[in-house]
Structures are given as C-alpha cells and as structure tokens.
C-alpha cells in the first residue's frame, strides 16, 4: 500500500515536472521566434537577404 502510494506520487511528480519543462521549452521557443527591431531594421533585412534565391513573403500586422 505504502509502495503503491509512493509510486503514484512519483508518477504524478514526474508528470508535473515533465509538463513544466514542456511549457518552459515552448515559452523559450516562442521567445526565440520574435526578433526585436527596436534598434534597427538590420535583423529583418539580413533575414530577407539570406533568402535570396527563394521567394519571400512579408506581412505587417498589428498584434492586438
């Protein structure tokens, strides 16, 4: 009985840690996706020119 309880707690704990790690990872991934242009247009220009030889699409939107 005690063993079963400990096993359940362990599974729940591992699952919680797994979920938290997943959320943190998703958050980091999302943070990496958004590049600030506050200092200059260079990051966008560089990304645009990196795609030379391929077609490109640019969309400008307000986020709210």
């Amino acid at each position, binding site marked *: 009985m005690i063993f079963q309880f400990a096993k359940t707690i362990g599974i729940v704990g591992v699952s919680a840690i797994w979920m938290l790690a997943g959320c943190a990872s998703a958050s980091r991934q*999302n*943070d990496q*996706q*958004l*590049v*600030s*242009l*506050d200092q*200059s*247009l260079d*990051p*966008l*220009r560089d*990304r*645009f*020119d*990196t*795609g*030379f*030889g*391929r*077609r*490109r*699409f*640019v*969309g*400008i*939107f*307000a*986020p*709210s």
Partner: protein
Amino acid sequence: MNCIRGARAVQESIIEGFPEADIDVLIVWTHILKGDAGDAAARKSSRIFDDPRVSQFHDGRRRVARAFAGYVNMPSMSKMIDEVGLKPGQVNSVFSPGFVKDDAAAFDLLMFFEADARWADDIPEPSTWMTQLDPDMFIGIDRHRFHWGPALVAELRREMTKRFPNNP
C-alpha cells in the same frame, strides 16, 4: 483584431495551403493600436505560426511600417482623421502612443517578393501586394489591392498558385 485575421489568412493560405513551397515568410508585428504596447500582444499573436519557414519580428517603433508606407501610398493617420473631420484627441485613445501624429505607417500589408529581390541598401519593391485596409477609409490605397476575409485567403492562394503551380 482585424490584423489577426490577416495573419491567420497567411497561415491558412500560404503555410497550410502550400506545405512544401520553398518560400520564406517574414511576419512583422508593429504597434498601431493601443493594445499593441509592449511585446505581450506580439508574443501572443506570434503563436499563430509554427512553421520553420516563418520568421517573426517585433516592430515596436514602427520602423518597418514606415519604411513600406510609400510603396502602398499609405496616408498618415493625421491626414486620414483630418479628411473625415475628426480631431486627434478623438482617436488618440484607440491607437498606439504617437501613432496619430507620426509619419504614415503601413499595416495589414501583405507582400510577395521574387527570388532575385535584395534589400542591400534600399527597401525592396514587392512584385505584388495586397491589403486589408478599406480604401474608403484609407484614402490613397489602391482599391484593387483591397481584399477582406475569405477573399483575402483566396487572393493569397491565387498568388501562391502562380508561383508554386505544382503544389500537392
């Protein structure tokens, strides 16, 4: 809200509609409305996209929006509200700080560039573009470039099909 519809149209028509197309999609989130302040709204809306072909940028100072305004003949907000007989104070609360008095800034703008386009010094010229901005309100915008809702999705698909005719 309307801008989000435009971004979703890109996701539906270009990303999901052409999963194998060799195209770089650059999404710029710029500050137009009051709710755009900070980067929380941009971060939230950036979740619309989850594809390696998409790169996303946060244009909190409207650098990109101003840079492309000339190509689409975008009127400044001060000119717009003047034409409809409003005062800046009547619309300030709706827009991002400084937007009403700022130079013209383009948004709800969707542009295609061909493979040989470069942005070495000057802003590149799109091979074609379209907008969600109603030309009845945004005086100066080419009426034929205006597409809204399902019509925007269809127009994006049409442009993609011209460029990627063998899409499965």
